[in-house]
């Protein structure tokens, strides 16, 4: 696939997205709501198919964001899918680890640092926090002092 065909392929899933943003020829940002993230991720990994790079969890002011970064190495394009989690009290999103083992660790990490629950994750134990770290304190949340 060249870049244009990739863009067309990505457009196939646009009814599950809220926005497609082309920041440059090889940097694409897709936006979706948390409940659609599983379907979009599955499409990106299995149908396009893209290489999973990593996910970033961010505490934005009014919501949480999980950004899934993918790479399409034939054209050097990096595709970032932003999933918004609006519920700040009980943030949760569907885990993509069941079909994408590469995401298992990073979902555990985001759970540790932001307290986002990844539903149906095969092994939701702590990854980076120490065993004696208090429950319910999430170091990358805004309310935690630097």
């Amino acid at each position, binding site marked *: 696939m060249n870049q244009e065909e990739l863009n067309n392929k990505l457009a196939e899933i646009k009814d599950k997205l809220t926005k497609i943003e082309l920041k440059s020829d090889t940097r694409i940002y897709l936006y979706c709501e948390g409940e659609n993230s599983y379907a979009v991720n599955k499409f990106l990994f299995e149908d396009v198919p893209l290489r999973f*790079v990593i996910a*970033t969890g961010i505490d934005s002011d009014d919501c949480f964001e999980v950004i899934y*970064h993918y790479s399409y190495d034939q*054209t050097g394009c*990096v595709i970032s899918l932003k999933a918004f989690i609006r519920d700040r009290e009980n943030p949760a999103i569907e885990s993509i680890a069941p079909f994408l083992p*590469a995401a298992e660790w990073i979902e555990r990490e985001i759970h540790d640092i932001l307290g986002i629950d990844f539903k149906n994750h095969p092994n939701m134990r702590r990854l980076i926090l120490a065993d004696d770290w208090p429950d319910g304190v999430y170091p990358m949340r805004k309310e935690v002092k630097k």
Partner: protein
Amino acid sequence: MKETVKKPILAVGPFHPLQEEMEFFQLTIDGEIVTDIDVRLSYNHRGIEKISESLQFDQIPFLVSRICGICSASHPTAYVNAVEELAGIKPPERALYVRTIINELERIHSHLLWVGLAGHFIGYDTVFMWAWKYREPVLDLLEEITGNRNNYGNVKVGGCREDVPNELVPKILKELDEIEKKTEMLTKAVLDDPVLHARLKGVGILSKEAAIKYAVTGPTARGSGVDIDVRRDDPYAAYGDLDWNVITQTEGDVFAKAVVRLLETFESIKMVRQALKKLPDGPVAVEVKEIPPGEAVGHAEAPRGETFHYVRSDGGNRPIRHKVRAPSYVNVPSFKASCLGQRIADVTITLAAVDPCYSCTERLAVIDQHNKVIHDGESLLRLSREKTAQMRKELGVPGLKMEDL
């Protein structure tokens, strides 16, 4: 009735002073065969991403170069790729070439370090001594250019901190000739050795399918036939101007990964030579004023694979989020695919083959159901080396001696 007999666990880790990250592997074993693997990490979590939010954009390259002493060129490179994209900064041509030179010298010494350690694990201490000896001049060159053998901190937003002085170019070229000759000798000694073929082929296979599912990068992916390399796929620094090849192997075993690394060293030597010959004149940095609000990603090919940075700015002088993914983060979990069904004697080298932080293997301990240590690091290393010696005997090959090289 529930299974009452506890399966023996092989505990690998967690602490070692040489590692850049602490890891703890628990291998469930059935006799000699590994049947399951569990990993615990982050014993040495330094909170780099959190610290980064409290530093200014121009201070962060020094922070991220300390993520790993060996990858201290590739992390800042990935970071500045992101920030320069975010702010639309165009570093001068010469800076791009200097970045390429530093990154490739880093790859040469990192790959030689791996070859040495891999040799040590399977009982080839001559390979260990020689590879590390050949690595020294590379570190000296880096010291001459940047002031440091490791933690060069040479890449900064808008360019480079230190230039490669023109008068140093002939010396680097001369050293490269020497390093190439020595690496060639070492490569021949390794690739033509029947014992190493017998010892490393078919061991710790990571299939192409598993490589894709675990999203591994770098030599770990290329050894399994996944043809990816950020330097070619999304060229940064001066890689787009250079003529070189991406090395791939299809077998996915330890031998394939060793071949990829050894042959890549020659490509790196080739690249440094070209970059030195093409080195344009001019400054090595531009002035950077403000970083506008926005977000960007940057990646770079570290010796172990793709290093990925994501930076978000709100227009202030510090990032509001800076995500770092080092290649080992995706390469390490692939043990789950490559170690299962392996013998204990092969685990040391299989773990070492993805070039994580091998040193953890020296803290191995096999514990039986009564929590008694039946093997420790030393005895596992001995097991691995005895297997090589046994094969050498069976094949009727004398041991590799210093004078053979």
